[in-house]
Structure formats: C-alpha cells, structure tokens
C-alpha cells in the first residue's frame, strides 16, 4: 500500500483552523442555535473531544472541566441525559462513557449504576431500547455493547441474543437496517458491524457482499453516499469507511479521491468541516472528516479505532481491542 503524503493533494488539512474552531465551540452562548441544540450537548462534546485527540492536540479542552460537566449529566437511574436536566438515553450514555474513557476519568463514575441502566434496556428478543419509552433501533445495540465493553461488563447482558437481533436486521444487499426489515443505511451498517466486532461475531457478516455495496457508495467526485442514488456527505466518510475497515476491505475504494473530497469540505476560513463543499460547518461533520482522514492514513493524525470511533491510544489503554475481520 502506497503511503499517503500531504503534497499529493491540492489542499492541505488546516489543523490550526480546526483547532481554533473546536476551541470556540462553547463560546456561542449569545446565539439561539446554541441553546436549541442543548439536547445533544453530550454528543457534541464527544465529537469535539475526539476530534482534538485525532488532531493530536488533546490539550485544546480542559479534560477535568469536561469530565465534571459530563458527570453532572448522570441521572438517578444511572444513565446520562443529553445535558444537565435531560432524561437518560443510551445515545448520551455512550457519549458520556466515551468521553470519560478518552479523558481517562472513568474511575470517577459509578460504573455499576451505568451498567445497570444499560442492561435494563435489553429486550427479550435481544434488541435494545434507547430509553424507558421503548424505541428499538440497532443504533442502541451498538451504544449498549460499546458502552459495556468499555466498562468491561459485557457479562451484564445476553450477548448471543443481542447478536441474534442484529442478525435479523441484515438485508438482501448484505447491509443492515435500524430494525428488522428496514432498509440498509451506511450509518446503521456501522452500528451493526461495530456491534458484531465488539462481541467478536463478524462471522455473521457477508463481507464480500457488504464490502462491495459499501464500495459502491463512492461517487465520481470521490465522496461517499449513505444509500444508493443519494448525495455524498462527509459523515459517510466515517460510516462507510469504518465499516469497510472493520471487514478489512478499505482498499476497495479510491483513497486519494476520498481524501481529496474530504479536504475540499473544510472551511478554510473558519475551520471545521461541512457535509459537502460550500455548506455550513458543524462539529459532527468536523469529527467524521478528521476520523475519515485518519483511517485513510493521512499524515500527522492520531490513529482512530474503526470499531469504537475513539483514539487507538485510548483503546489500547482500556485493553479492549477487538479483532478485525478474518479473511474468510
């Protein structure tokens, strides 16, 4: 595999600008949008923190302060809400645990309580609900398994049942949907393939079929879309690419063209990435632009783990590395 060099591309990664963008994310309290997006604050923090680590500048945020805030979002039931004074949900519980893991402050959280919250959300068919109101989605299977694996407590749930449910969501194209019978979608595929990787059950995946479908997400402009006949979007650089990486077929797409596309979605004035060129940037696309580049081997970035979407250094410290796909 040829090595990726910065000079190969007409635009370079604007590390300084992205760091500045990330640093200032919390300075927009005079804008209405800041308050309206409060419900997913914990996701936002996870996206921002992980981005700084992959850019290899973890000092940008004060990890003590961040951990303190995260802990303030834990509710009585053990789960985490999207912000303080928000109800618990698996989506935010995973983000919280991920950030604490990255900042190496997991010891400060009451793990048993978190484990109890997550385990309670497993349904008899193996699926997971997002919260007490019962919405079922394979995204939540990923959230639950990832969270428990980070806490080294997979024993708290019925793993074979969880696998069985994910298996039921597999489709004719080798991909996975949100629930049984739902259409394949790259984001959902990441969740399912990731969940299976966490519990070492990638044997279920038809890697050739799925890998081919994922490779066909690459469009002539180099970008990736999430479903057939849809538009390209930077976030699929992550969903598609990480899935391909987990099943060891990342070489089935054109890396250089994709790097080119991702780099073209940077805002070279303000920093940050948008979904595609010329659109408004946001922290979500910023993270997935950067992690995508990291997976593609772009120079001077910290390595990201395709299964957990966290720095490889964190995964090594936690000792939770999962096997990638075996070739057969």
């Amino acid at each position, binding site marked *: 595999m040829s090595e990726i060099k910065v000079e190969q591309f007409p635009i370079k990664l604007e590390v300084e600008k992205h760091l500045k963008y990330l640093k200032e994310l919390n300075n927009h309290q005079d804008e209405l949008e800041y*308050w309206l997006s409060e419900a997913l604050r914990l996701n936002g923090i996870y996206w921002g923190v992980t981005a700084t680590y992959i850019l290899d500048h973890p000092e940008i945020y004060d990890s003590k302060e961040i951990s303190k805030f995260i802990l303030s979002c834990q509710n009585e039931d053990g789960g985490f809400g999207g912000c303080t004074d928000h109800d618990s949900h698996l989506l935010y519980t995973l983000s919280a645990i991920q950030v604490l893991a990255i900042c190496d402050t997991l010891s400060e959280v009451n793990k048993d309580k978190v484990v109890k919250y997550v385990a309670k959300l497993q349904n008899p068919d193996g699926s997971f609900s997002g919260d007490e109101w019962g919405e079922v989605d394979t995204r939540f299977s990923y959230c639950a398994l990832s969270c428990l694996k980070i806490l080294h407590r997979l024993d708290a749930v019925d793993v074979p049942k969880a696998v069985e449910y994910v298996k039921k969501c597999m*489709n004719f194209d080798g991909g996975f949907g949100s629930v049984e019978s739902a259409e394949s*979608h790259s984001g959902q595929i990441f969740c399912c393939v990731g969940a299976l990787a966490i519990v070492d*059950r990638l044997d279920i995946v*038809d890697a050739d079929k799925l890998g081919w479908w994922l490779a066909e997400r690459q469009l002539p402009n180099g970008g990736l*879309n999430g*479903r057939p*006949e849809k*538009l390209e979007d930077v976030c699929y650089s992550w969903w598609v690419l990480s899935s391909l990486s987990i099943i060891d077929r990342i070489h089935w797409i054109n890396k250089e063209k994709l790097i080119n596309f991702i780099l073209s979605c940077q805002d070279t004035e303000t920093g940050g990435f948008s979904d595609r060129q010329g659109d408004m940037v946001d922290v979500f696309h910023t993270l997935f632009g950067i992690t995508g580049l990291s997976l593609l081997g772009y120079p001077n970035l910290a390595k990201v783990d395709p299964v957990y979407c966290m720095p490889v250094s964190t995964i090594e410290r936690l000792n939770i590395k999962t096997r990638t796909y075996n070739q*057969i």
Partner: protein
Amino acid sequence: MNNKKNPQGTFNGIRSVRFPPITQSYISDPCRYEPQKVKYFNDTLEKKPHSIHGVCETLDSRFKNRKQNHTVAPCDHNTSQSLLLDPTKVIDMRKDSHRYNFGSTSMTPAPNTYDINYATGRYASNNYKFQLLKSNEHKERDEANKVQLDTIRSLLKLDNIFTDKRTCRRIAHFALYFPQRQYKIQFNINQFIVLSYKNFHGVKKSYVSEEIRNEKKLKEKSEIEEYLNLVKIINEKRKNKVYDSEAFNITTKILSYNVEYYTLWNFRRKILLHQFETLTPEEKEKKFENELEFQEKCVRKKPKSYWAWNHRRWILENMEKPNWKRELLLVNGMLNLDTRNFHGWDYRRYVISKSKVSSVKEEFEYTTKKISQSFSNYSAWHYRSKLIPKLVTKKTKWEKLSTNEFEMVKNAEYTDPNDQSAWLYHCWLLGDDNNLVGIKNCYLIQNVDNKYTFGIELLKKIMLKSSNSIQISINDEVQKVEFTTPTITQNKFSKLWISNLDISNFANDTKIKVSFNKDEIITIDDKKLIIPELEFTIQDLYIKNENINSEIQKQLKSYNKDCKEEKEENHIKIVNTQISEDVLNEELESVKELLELEPDSKWALLTLVKILSKLDNKEDEIIEILEKLKDIDTYRNEYYLDFVSQFKMNKCIKQSNKDMTLDLSSQNLTRLSLIDECSTYTKIDISNNSDLFNSINDIYSYSYDAFSYLINARILILNNNKLKEIPKSILSLQNLTEIYLENNEFSTLEELKPLNQIKSLKCIHLAQNPIVSSMETEKIKEYLNNIDVHC
C-alpha cells in the same frame, strides 16, 4: 431476447439508447454539465420524431433486422423541435391530454417505444445531483420562494409547479440540457436549491458581514432570554413532578420551536398519563386526537425527527381505537413527497405490523407502483426483497414470480444502465452462494499422530447449536464426537466442521452413518437446514494419497437434491428460492444483449459475472470480464483484483482434482478467499504470490486465520513471497511436517521462533533468506529444536 406477448401490456422488450454515461466530473453545481452531453441531446433530437413531451423513438433504427410492429408513445403530432427546445412551451398545461397531468402516474411510455422526455425526467430524478431539489416542506418553501415562484409560474403558466418534485426536476433538467435556455431558468433553480436547504445537513454557507451578524445576535438576545425562561420553568415543574396544564402548554410552546427537545416529549407523555386518570374514555380519545394533530405539525417542521415519530407511535399504541387506515394514508402522502425517506418506509412497515390495513400482496403492489414511478427507488426495491419471501410458498409460484421480477429489472436497466438500484436487486434475484444447500464433501483423514479426523464441508456457512448437533453412528452405535471449526475462535458460522473419530477398531467396509439434528443446525439467514441421513463406508470416506474421495463427491451431488432449507414466519413456511439453469441461461442472453448496445456498462458486466459464476467452467471468461471492469471502474480496481483471485483459485482447485496437491503458485493472488474449501490437500504451493502477503495488512495477526483451514497439510510451500514473519494461523496446523520459506526476507532467529510451536514440523527450507548468509545452518537448526534446516 424474447419479446413475449405480455398480457398486462407492460413493456417487454428493449428500450432505446440511454444517455451517455456520466463522466468523472468535479463540478458541484448541478446547472453546469458536460457539454458533450448537451451536444448528444441536440443531435439525438435532430434525428428523432418527437412531441411536445419528448422524442418517441421506435426500435427500427436500432434493430434493423428485427421486424416488429411499434406503437408510438402517446404524443402530440404538431410539434417541432423549436417547441421542444423551449421549456416554457414544453411544459404547457393548457393542452388537454393526460400526458400533461404531472400529478398522475401514467407517465410510462407505451410498449416498444421510448420517450426521451420520460427517460430524461427519470434520469434527472435518479441522478444524485438533482436530489438537491429535495424538500418536504413545500409550504414554507413556497413562502420563502415566493418571488421566484411567481416568476416561474408566469413563465410556465403553471400554478402548482413547486408542489411537484418531478416537475421541478424536469425544469432543472431542461435548464441543464438546453443551454440556450439555461440562464433564465438557472437563476431560479439556483435560488430554489439554496432556499430548499434546511437544518444540519446541506445548510448553505452564507456570507454575512460582522454588522449583520451582530444585529442578528442582538435580535436573538431577547429570544434567548424568553426561551431560557421557559426552559427554567419547565425544569422546575419536571423536578417537582407538577403535571398541570401550564406545564403542558409550555411543552407545546417549546416543542413547536424545538422538536428535538426529547426530554419534553417524555414529560409531555407523563403529563398526559397523569391527566388521563381523571378523564372519561371519550375525553381521552379526544386528547389523543389533539396530540396527533400537534405531532403532525411538529413533524412537518422536521420530518426526520426520531423523537417526534416515537411520540406518534406512543399515541397510537395507547389509543383505544387507533385509526390505522388514516396512518397509512398519511404515510402514503409522506412517501409521495419524499420517496426515499426511510422514516416514512419504516413507519409504513410499523403501521402494517400493527394492523391489517394492507396485505402482503397490497404492499407488493405498492412497491410496484413506486418502482414504476421511479426505477431508482432503492427503498422500494429493498421492501420488495422483504415481501417476496412471504409471497412465495410453492416452487411454481416462485418461478412465476421471478419471471415477472426479471422482467421488471430489465425494464429499469434498459432505461438507465447506470442506476444501481435495479442491478443490486437483480444480483439478489439471481441468488448468491447462500442459496446453495447441501454437503460438498465428507471425509476421513489420518493425522500424523495416527488419530483420525472426520470432516464435513457444507455448501454454505452454518452454525451448530451444540457440538453434537451432527451425530455419527457406527454399527448403530452412537459415537462420541465433538464438532468444531478449525479456526481460532469457536462457535461461529463456518462451512467446515471437524471432529475426532476413533475408527481404529473397525474394518474398512464398516458403514458410518451421519445424521443431522434439523433443529440445531442454523444458517445465517435463520433458516433451518433439512438434510437427510448420510451413509458411507470407511474406505469410501478415507482420503489417502491417490484415493481422493471423488466417488463420495459424486454421490453427494444427487444427495443434495433432497436437501432444503425452511423458515417459518407468521406461520408461513418460507421455502428456498433457487433459480433454475434455464432461467440463468435466459438471463445470460438478456444481459449479453444489453452489452451489445452498451459494451462498457459496468453493472451489466458485473451482473454477467454473477450469472457466469453460477454456471460451470466459466472461470476464464469471468477473469477476462473482471480485468476489463478493473479498467472501466478504476475507483474500485482492487475489488476486482480480489474477485479475480477468487476465480483463479477456483480454477486451480478444479485442476487439482486428481491428486492431493494444490498448486496456487504464481497466480498473483491478492487473497485466499476459497481456502475453507482446501482442507483435504496434503501439499499446498502458494509460492510467488507476494501481493497476497503485501495487500493483507493483518496477515501476521491472530485475526488472519486463513491457514487454519489447511488441516491436512503436510507440506506448505511459501517461496518468493517477501515474507518477514510467520503468519500466525500456520502455527495451528497439526499435520505440517515440511515448510518451504525460500527466497523470503527472514533475517533473525526471533522471526522464525514461532515455528517451534508446530510439533509435527520436521523440515524447513530457508535458502535465499538474509538469515542464511549471516548465520550458520547448524545454529539455526539448534535454535529450531533440531529439525532439518535446508539452506
């Protein structure tokens, strides 16, 4: 191709030439397009008879030798090219013809005709560039676009133009393809595109001055205060569990402002549940009705809000008499506006699972309708793949159904061979390896420690619920066996299952009976494998030197005809759907015919590969096509390389049938995809395939367990492969006595050390490795437990 008489009168034959393939383009502006395409269109139009709505082309010009009667597509005759090129006249609603009814679905051209305008419309709606025009919020959008709308309305004399997505696309299309009109329309279209963007994804960056930004902030200041004040009150109420109507009203206020405030949806439900305690059933239903209305208002604002959709499900599930019919209508409307919205499709399946408002057959017809509106509706094709197994209960029915399906994909593929939706579905229809049921091989091998291994190789991956789901009896006595996979991790889906079997006390002609517990053998798609009992003599099963058990393999072929799979879903027995050889050959002809017209059609070539791979001895042809695809579809060239390796390997396996040696040397393999079919070979030569060891990043790690399948390997040859380390999975081979590692890159003893783990190893060939020139052979030998070292 057969142009059969089709009772429904749907199109059965070949459609016309499509548009030239999209060449690589970095232009993100959809209004600029390849000039050669515009030229192609203009040239095409010159030559064809056409109508206001497009060009009707008969098949005559393209298939001169084919005598056919053609019907011309419904069109107006008094049109000229100038009319066609003028978009203001092209879309002229004053004509009294159903062809002008854009809201209707009767846009399909008549049989054997080709309406370029129909295809352009479809092409435009298929092309991802045109999805820029997508928006569900047409009401608000219309307000925002009032000025442009008025201009376009007067220009096109059309009142409802922007409520019809297809029409939008048509205009966009004409703006693109007819440069003389481009400017006028382009402006409007661009405005439209920009203004139809909303939220999170696809928010266009706007350049505003510092001054305006500050002004905006100032304006927002009071808004923020008001908002935060409401949030403060509601949090207070939440904390104190105050479920009063004031709290309810505040949630209404905030949620209509901010649909994503999930905690308040939760709180709202809690308030409702509290209020219900004192309400009569009628009052309760009334409340629910209001709630549905409120939810609809919110979801219009944000059609992709998971939280809002959850709320709707909660309401319906708690209602005394939910009106599921209404929900179906609602979801129909939603899917008319946005045909690919997966929330819509998921909600549809939800409604149907909760009620009986639509049968499997009706749903199937719905997908047919959606697909005929747009062949590129992958969501509908997907849904079809879920419905078909429920419709098929008998073999004849499947044959009838599949004929219809192949017909449908053919129509789609001829209309736009670049659209992947139908092709992906086509490949599924053809069936993959997963459709094969049965046993490929069954054997006994003697290991170097003189014990025996019984192996059973299936045509598809299975998992055993317990280690004795497969039972073996000799002389009616059940033997103690424990089946596992040869790989490092156990309890997985695998084609190969092995067990120790003690046969030392039995004569050669003793019969061995193998039986399968049907409830304990499962496939990945959750089907039960139903396979009859097997019975062979020991000498038939035993593989030794020249005695490869070809007799058994022959018998298994007929045996496999009695094997089947079953799945039960809602008390319907779902049977396996296999394509007959006749159908395969028909499909082969059909794809080849398309390739005559479109020799470089990637999807047609790929489908050809899929078909050929199901027929015997087509490896050379397949490899040739894949080499061609590698050049056509350069982004994915490594995919084709890996695919080529699979067929090369298959060829080698077939050629090796006479003895127990498998020669894979100098094949430029990039992967060993069929290695799980190589468990009986005693000598395997993989020399001179250095790409194999370069391309696989992880070959040295534990996750690469390819070699563990070579359970009978005595000699393994890995010369000329630039190897630096011993691949870990080699270390599990318990019968390996000799390994060739000549001309590789081993330079230290440490790198060879793992070989010590192979207890059976007697001999190693190390010539032409750096270590040989720097170290005495004796020293290496000493280090490697005194096995023979040849340098």
